[in-house]
């Protein structure tokens, strides 16, 4: 069998290209009520009054729900967030009230009639503003909040968490340095802008069972958190997730499910549905965090880095939720993929009056790498060393330790020097200068960056798989991974087909998640889908192979050790003619006289990440994730020196993927990530006014990269197996994005001969950096 690496078409492809695939909001049922939100019109304001008297008069309105202290506070690390704002609003778009009505139009009409009176409060627009001595405190009761995780909030401040990384001796490191460079960087919050807006349905049955259908990357977490927040037996909560139309981390937090649950509860448990408008999806739902950063790197004159001193201020927004984790991940991989003996980093998660942060493809890494890799280029410039050469000289290798002092080996870290070498070949790095003149106005410039990432997920995260058989001997694969568009379930089928030596067409994949019947996969995040579920699939395959051989050993009167399987048969290794078809075994074997033995075969497998630890609060020491994927990035652009406009020409990336499981699938994932990275680097960002309102809450004005604006993409792979990954594979779902903003910024900084240390890199930003002359 050679299914590993093949570009198998995704199992759900035909449903998707014909428009027949069903997503959460597609599930219509007659008796469903509809929910519309009233959301905050300000970034920070006291709620003086909410007048719903007109709305209540609308016929067909079943319930109106407002925030109250009776409702539980929610949040994954710190429970700081009321599901509906109470007393004050802390961000623009924050849910204030829900209307439940017979039809969506009635709910909207009523919601539009609810009058909210505000008294605006001063708005915190950035982490550095939030840290000022006279800054208003966004959460006065920070210390009284319950904590679910291990956050370290600072009382009477806007600091939700601090992660301290202390490796080596920073003073010593700086002393050893002949050269230091320092830079400050910033980028604003932005959106995931997935094609499918968030949506959920909820029903509380008379028997007390809560049924939720949600567009989520974390249906199992929905179950657990709803149970905690509302004190419901966790077994009585059943969550279903059909296809998800893009998540990018934005559907890992729990928000719309809580609103759906509250709405159902308010109408006696009837089934209700809520589907965010695009505006709500952009502003109400959790977003991509912002960052302010200060990075100092010290190096010998030969270009050997001695020290890195770093301050990261993550703009976590109004509520801490998952942005605490993001800021922690930013601390874990606070430097690029380099061997640096002396690292000092404080990574803060700061409250502001922006929409609150959530995971976003890369989980803090693209933000951090933007700052670090820009500084690396400035160091290369100061030392007059080729920027790729500087990175190669300092590349992290087996035997080195990470900022959290994890000792790396040949399996746990990718081969960065090989990525760099392959990238050089791929793009012809040695040919020409970094900036080549095209004519008197235009130049062609190239920029690079490197990146790495581990996945800082819960230390007890696990993934389960169940295999059942059909009477023809084909296998049903049931995994808790949500199909969010990454084709993960197809790759799991490939892994199973390879292990079972069967055709991949003989593997039937269950796409929909039902937490009552699907074994748990922690969350479909962190590039851990195939990594963990793939291992669970292999374990489950071993389980069914053992059961099949056990049966066959009895029937064929042979030792299990003498049996092998392939092509839906179990046979004697030395005489394959003596065999049994799976179909004759997997539902029990019937002897000619009718006697039967065995019964149906059901396989299971699971995988739990092992030996992960929490970080030491003082030094950050600890094992935060299983492996580090490494990558090298390249961007080439044509830049107009008069207008400061540019066109993306070519983007390239080489990533150490360990093993390619589905070639086109992997290229698609990487290319999609690169595209997203360039989109955020070049254009995507929220624009806030002085009241903290998002001024571009629609796709008219919030504009992800469009087809035709893209460069040519080149993707290649290095394959250094991760012994723990299925067939040696490493995570790759996020990595396409990580270094792209930095590579573009490095490219344009060279082209414009300016330090471009802010995102997005619009022509206006470059013009300002060049002096804003008319």
């Amino acid at each position: 069998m050679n299914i590993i690496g093949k570009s198998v078409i995704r199992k759900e492809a035909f449903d998707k290209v014909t428009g027949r695939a069903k997503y959460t909001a597609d599930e219509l049922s007659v008796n469903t009520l509809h929910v519309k939100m009233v959301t905050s019109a300000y970034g920070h304001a006291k709620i003086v009054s909410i007048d719903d008297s007109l709305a209540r008069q609308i016929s067909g309105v079943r319930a109106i729900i407002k925030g109250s202290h009776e409702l539980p506070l929610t949040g994954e690390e710190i429970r700081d967030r009321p599901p509906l704002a109470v007393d004050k609003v802390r961000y623009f778009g924050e849910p204030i009230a829900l209307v439940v009505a017979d039809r969506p139009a009635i709910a909207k009409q009523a919601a539009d009639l609810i009058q909210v009176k505000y008294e605006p409060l001063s708005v915190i627009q950035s982490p550095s503003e939030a840290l000022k001595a006279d800054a208003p405190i966004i959460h006065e009761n920070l210390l009284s909040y319950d904590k679910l995780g291990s956050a370290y909030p600072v009382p009477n401040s806007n600091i939700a968490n601090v992660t301290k990384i202390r490796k080596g001796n920073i003073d010593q490191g700086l002393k050893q340095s002949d050269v230091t460079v320092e830079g400050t960087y910033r980028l604003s919050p932005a959106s995931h802008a997935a094609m499918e807006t968030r949506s959920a349905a909820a029903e509380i049955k008379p028997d007390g069972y809560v049924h939720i259908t949600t567009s989520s990357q974390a249906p199992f977490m929905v179950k657990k958190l709803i149970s905690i927040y509302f004190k419901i037996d966790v077994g009585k909560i059943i969550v279903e997730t059909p296809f998800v139309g893009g998540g990018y981390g934005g559907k890992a937090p729990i928000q719309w499910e809580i609103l759906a649950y509250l709405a159902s509860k308010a109408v006696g448990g009837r089934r209700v549905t809520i589907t965010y408008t695009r505006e709500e999806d952009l502003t109400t739902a959790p977003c991509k965090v912002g960052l302010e950063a200060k990075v100092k790197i010290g190096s010998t004159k030969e270009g050997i880095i001695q020290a890195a001193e770093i301050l990261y201020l993550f703009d976590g927004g109004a509520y801490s939720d998952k942005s605490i984790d993001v800021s922690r991940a930013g601390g874990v991989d606070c430097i690029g993929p380099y061997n640096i003996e002396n690292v000092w980093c404080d990574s803060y998660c700061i409250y502001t009056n922006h929409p609150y942060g959530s995971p976003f493809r890369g989980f803090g890494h693209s933000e951090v790498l933007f700052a670090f890799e820009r500084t690396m280029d400035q160091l290369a410039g100061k030392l007059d060393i080729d920027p790729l050469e500087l990175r190669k000289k300092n590349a992290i290798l087996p035997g080195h330790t990470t900022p959290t002092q994890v000792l790396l080996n040949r399996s746990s870290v990718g081969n960065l020097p090989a990525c760099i070498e392959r990238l050089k070949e791929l793009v012809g790095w040695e040919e020409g200068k970094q900036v080549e003149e095209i004519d008197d106005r235009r130049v062609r410039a190239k920029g690079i960056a490197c990146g790495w990432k581990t996945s800082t997920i819960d230390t007890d995260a696990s993934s389960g798989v169940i295999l059942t058989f059909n009477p023809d001997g084909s296998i049903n694969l049931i995994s808790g991974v949500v199909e969010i568009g990454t084709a993960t379930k197809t790759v799991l089928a490939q892994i199973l087909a390879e292990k079972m030596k069967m055709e991949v067409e003989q593997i039937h994949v269950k796409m929909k998640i039902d937490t009552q019947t699907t074994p748990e996969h922690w969350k479909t995040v962190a590039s851990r889908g195939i990594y963990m579920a793939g291992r669970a699939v292999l374990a489950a395959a071993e389980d069914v192979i053992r059961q099949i051989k056990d049966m066959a050993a009895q029937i064929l009167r042979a030792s299990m050790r003498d049996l092998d399987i392939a092509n839906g048969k179990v046979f004697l290794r030395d005489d394959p003619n003596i065999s049994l078809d799976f179909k004759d075994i997997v539902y029990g074997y019937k002897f000619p006289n009718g006697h039967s033995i065995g019964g149906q075969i059901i396989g299971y497998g699971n995988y739990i990440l092992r030996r992960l630890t929490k970080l030491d609060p003082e030094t950050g020491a600890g094992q935060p994730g299983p492996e580090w994927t490494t990558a090298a990035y390249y961007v080439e652009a044509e830049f107009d020196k008069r207008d400061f406009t540019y066109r993306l020409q070519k983007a390239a990336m080489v990533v150490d993927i360990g093993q390619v499981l589905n070639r086109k699938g992997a290229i698609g994932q990487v290319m999609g990530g690169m595209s997203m990275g360039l989109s955020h680097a070049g254009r995507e960002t929220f624009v806030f006014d002085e009241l903290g309102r998002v001024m571009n809450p629609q796709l008219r004005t919030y504009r992800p990269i469009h087809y035709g604006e893209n460069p040519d993409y080149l993707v290649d792979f290095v394959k250094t197996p991760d012994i723990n990954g299925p067939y040696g594979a490493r995570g790759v779902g996020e990595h396409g994005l990580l270094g792209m903003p930095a590579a573009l910024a490095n490219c344009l900084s060279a082209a414009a001969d300016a330090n471009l240390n802010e995102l997005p890199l619009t022509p206006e930003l470059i013009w300002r950096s060049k002096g804003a002359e008319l």
Partner: protein
Amino acid sequence: MSSYNFEYYKPKSIEEAASIFDQMDQQGKDPMYFSGGTEIITLKRLNQLKTGAVIDIKAIQECNVFEFHEDSLLTGAALTLTKVEELNLFPLLSQTVSEIADKTARNKITAGGNICGQIFYREAVLPFLLTDSELMIAGSDGRRNAPIKDVFNKQLLLNRGEFLVQMKTNRKYTEMPFVSIKRRRQWNTGYPLLTVAALKAEQGIRVAISGLTHFPFRSAQMEDALNRTDLAFEKRINLALSLLDVPILNDTEGSARYRLFVLKNTLYDIFQELEGDKLASIEEH
């Protein structure tokens, strides 16, 4: 989704349309004429527009013409931008409208609808401003033709119950050298930072601008400055900029000062396109 209902009418004649409008108006329904509908539908969803009845003008024959009649090009208000672009009878118009929104939207947006829109870029009007076109406007008092400069000031000045039927453009203008440049905040998607359309007429260069301020305009003073053949191009541009008497937009697309920077460069590009030979010879000196 709209949170309230409204009536929909699709009359076949100008007269019928005008009479339905009056009827609806008398019933207090705040009627609106409806063409491509992209703006009415999207603004209605956001409660930024309220109407109890819409009167679709797309079935009216006069609103759908696109042909030369004697020495004039007639452009029906209900023609979609895609159709204008594909038939390409008026290349300046084709070029300008081809940059509006995206293809899917242009299949719906109409020339007249864009000119009458609330979204203030109204780039489809620029070519008609440059060509001193005549507009046919109809209402319950019948039809009238008016020079565009008399009826378009920031927006189309319609009396209550009137709608734009068609634009009439002298053929000679459709054959003159032109340039239409749209500059955006970034790359090729989005509203304009600026759209500048220019025409090289016998008397000199004409320029109309959208996106610089909250309405599209053509300025005689700016054109006079740009046509000061006694001055070098750069001086003409600086003079034209100094004569700007509109408030410059400062919004999510770009700051006011940056817009001026972009305008300056765009005007230079327009000279390059329309007066390239002279520009080159001047630069050599």
